[in-house]
């Protein structure tokens, strides 16, 4: 069978980085093809070349066997290629129909005959047809900002179908979805492939590939190292191909040695930026020597909860104590003094300052410890040796400590931030989405460090949307939905289905396996 799309020997060079080094990919019609690789392996660049955003320095693109050249994205879209980015490209105050027709010209008959008026009603009809045909329930007149992320993604898919895309590229499509939403998406992708369309999924999540893909192409260091059929491979083999060595996706935990109670909250309520109640009465306690995991789909109040615990957001009600002391009203630096350290979810926007060096970033949260006698002048000698220690101890890969933190890869940056917080020897470490967007090798490293912190008798509050992470690390699991805990599970009792249902708002009480949280 002639491939629907074929990339041959693509070379793409940026200043001094070879992003794609003779990368080749061929996707058959009706195939779901996964493009797998660590961050920085060149997956996105390769897809940007196919989508016309970048021009390759070498190699060629063939559509149905004939070479093509795309001057820009518009040309690629015209040729039937569509791409869904990880961050959706939707205008939030616009309706679904408006978003779908945005950027289209006359050829798809979005204008009424002769009068040159936008025919939104006609477009809506076509969207309804498409959505019933493909089982993508969407109300064409709803505004994007009122839709949950899962539905927004359907709108993105409809956008491509409206343009008759034959080749659909999805960049990390499941990053923001619940397990149930993910299952639904994968089903949709299968049915689109069954119609003869080609689907390319860019991802680093192994288990999804096993579920949906027909074939997998693995990239490493800009090269396409292998293409394998799903039947002929295993998760372990894929992981090994991806990082070039064997990796352990299950961690070995030593038995928990639970100590004193560190952090407690009682009836905590917190508002979000728009003044709506995001955290609705949360009781929580974290002890020394344990990892408490908070699972939940993004946007269910966990960010606001963490910000309230770290002093970055005022609470509207309830109480927070640390080792018995009330810290409800204390400042972020006051809480650091109590022994609370925090690794934020947004590594680049909050956890580090990208243009500053590794050295500057390594002292960011503990500046006073790196000053001279009167705290006026910085002691660069000490901050330099601290940064060198940090880089060496946590294996941050960087040319030197003057290297800008923003240019580190996600995994290395996370190691630096995590290391910085751990080296302050906190009593309690709050970590939020610690491995989001990281590749398998880096995840392994972060997990190992977190377990070391736990085993040394410090407490950890782990907030994560990744079930695998929560299940592997946490000693107790709390599931948050719309600002409330749906229940508490012991790690042994938790399985994906139970947690998934609770993440979707089904109370833990209905499941026999769960132990519901009793309010004191």
């Amino acid at each position, binding site marked *: 069978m002639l491939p629907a799309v074929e990339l041959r020997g693509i070379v793409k060079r940026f200043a001094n980085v070879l992003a794609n080094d003779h990368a080749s990919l061929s996707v058959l019609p009706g195939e779901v093809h996964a493009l797998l690789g660590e961050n920085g392996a060149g997956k996105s660049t390769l897809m940007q070349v196919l989508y016309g955003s970048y*021009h390759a320095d070498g190699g060629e693109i063939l559509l149905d066997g004939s070479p093509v*050249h795309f001057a*820009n994205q518009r040309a690629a879209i015209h040729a039937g290629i569509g791409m869904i980015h990880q961050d959706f490209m939707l205008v939030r105050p616009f309706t679904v129909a408006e978003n779908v027709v945005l950027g289209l010209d006359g050829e798809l008959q979005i204008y009424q005959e002769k009068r040159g008026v936008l025919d939104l009603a006609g477009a809506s009809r076509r969207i309804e047809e498409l959505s019933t045909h493909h089982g993508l329930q969407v109300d064409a007149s709803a505004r994007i900002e009122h839709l949950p992320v899962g539905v927004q993604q359907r709108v993105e898919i409809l956008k491509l179908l409206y343009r008759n895309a034959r080749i659909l590229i999805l960049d990390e499509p499941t990053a923001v979805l619940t397990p149930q939403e993910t299952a639904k998406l994968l089903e949709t992708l299968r049915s689109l492939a069954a119609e003869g369309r080609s689907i390319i999924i860019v991802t680093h999540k192994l288990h999804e590939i096993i579920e949906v893909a027909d074939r997998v192409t693995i990239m490493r260091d800009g090269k396409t190292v292998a293409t394998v059929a799903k039947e002929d491979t295993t998760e372990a083999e894929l992981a090994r191909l991806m990082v070039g060595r064997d990796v352990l996706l299950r961690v070995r935990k030593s038995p928990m040695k639970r100590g004193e109670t560190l952090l407690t909250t009682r009836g905590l309520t917190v508002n979000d930026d728009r003044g709506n109640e995001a955290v609705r009465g949360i009781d929580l306690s974290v002890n020394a020597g344990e990892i408490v995991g908070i699972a939940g789909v993004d946007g269910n109040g966990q960010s606001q909860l963490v910000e309230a615990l770290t002093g970055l957001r005022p609470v509207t009600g309830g109480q927070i104590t640390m080792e018995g002391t009330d810290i409800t009203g204390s400042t*972020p630096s006051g809480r*650091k003094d109590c022994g609370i350290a925090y690794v934020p979810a947004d590594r680049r926007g909050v*956890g*580090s300052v990208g243009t500053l060096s590794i050295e500057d970033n390594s002292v960011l*949260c503990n*500046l006073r410890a790196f000053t001279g006698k009167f705290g006026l002048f910085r002691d660069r000698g000490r901050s330099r040796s601290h940064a060198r220690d940090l880089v060496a101890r946590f294996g941050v890969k960087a040319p030197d400590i003057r290297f800008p933190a923003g240019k580190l890869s996600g995994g290395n940056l996370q190691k630096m931030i995590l290391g910085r917080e751990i080296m302050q020897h906190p009593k309690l470490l709050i970590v939020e989405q610690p491995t989001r967007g990281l590749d398998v090798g880096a995840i392994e490293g972060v997990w190992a460090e977190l377990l070391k912190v736990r085993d040394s008798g410090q407490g950890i509050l782990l907030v994560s949307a990744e079930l695998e992470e929560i299940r592997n690390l946490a000693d107790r699991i709390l599931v948050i939905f719309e600002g409330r805990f749906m229940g508490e599970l012991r790690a042994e009792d938790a399985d994906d289905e139970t947690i998934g249902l609770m993440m979707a708002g089904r109370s833990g009480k209905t499941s026999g396996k769960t132990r519901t949280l009793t309010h004191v």
Partner: protein
Amino acid sequence: MFNLFERRLAPLDSPSVVVTSTLGSILLALAIGAFLFIPFGANPLLAYVSLFESSLGSLRGFAMTLNRAAPLILVALGTCVAWRAGFGFLGFEGCMTIGAAAAAWFALVGVGEAGQGIILPALLFWPAMLAVAFAAGGVWAGSVGVLRTRYGGNEVLISLMMNYVAIFLVQYLVSGPMRAAGNLPQTDRFPTESWLPMIIPGTRAHAGILIAVGAAFLVWLLISRMRVGFELIVTGLSPLAARYSGIDVGRRYLLAAVGAGGLGALAGLVEVLGTQHRLMDGLSGGLGFIGIVVALLAKLNPLLIVPVAILYAALSVGADALQRSAGVPSSIIFILQSLIVLFVMASDFIRYWKPRLPRFGAATAREERTDA
């Protein structure tokens, strides 16, 4: 445009690229500016030579350039402190005016009756003078900082509007409470003890440049050596990261506002005690804005600000000389200055985007092959 340029993965930021692109854009501006001389029958090359000869070639001219540069440096340093902390302060005209008024008041009060000697010993007089002016400007700009941090006001708008308040306030002072006898709305001439001392014999170069260079050193110390300065920079680069790392962002904004206002006020002090020797209406003459431009040209680097301000001042001094000697309107030089600013700012584009003409080359290469 999207077909002609492609975003670079990382901007080119090696020193050699920055220097080349900056020098290139200055030369380009001079080349384009050369056309402006042609209608006046002047040889552009000779005009450029005499421009710099009059401002940098003689000791007298250089002294004038230094006097012109001193307030520019101080305003630019104020911009550096405020903007690096992410505080979009534009109120330097107002701070200069307020600083000048405070300096005038202290000169008239602190020296006593004209000619009767200084009340304070000279050793204390100058530090006190600088402190008074700095404090006046600091309080003035600090109020903008309070409005921003306490009530979430927009510091760009407020500081801009407060320029007018300051200017009218001084207009009121010189036509009312501080007015000297006579027809003009101005104060008495200050006693000579309060004039900035001359520093180069035989010229009019006054100590303003020393204050400016000293301030540049202190700002450099603050920004690159002190903990508070580092906190300011982190606040400016990422308020979120600053808050996360325990920095009190509001206080840092306030500090930046006070520092910027104080430095702006020192610029006013230099003008009024160095050049005019009396307080009158309209003293800042736009220096409060030109200083911002100088700071931007120097990429908000306190040590780079000094040479850039001197070059900028040299262009202005040379422009005046050119108008006197050759009858070429000095507005040409202002056009030239604007071109330099625009081109230097625009030269960043090439560091972030790379021209994209690969198909061109590929196509011709293929044709050559078929020919052979």
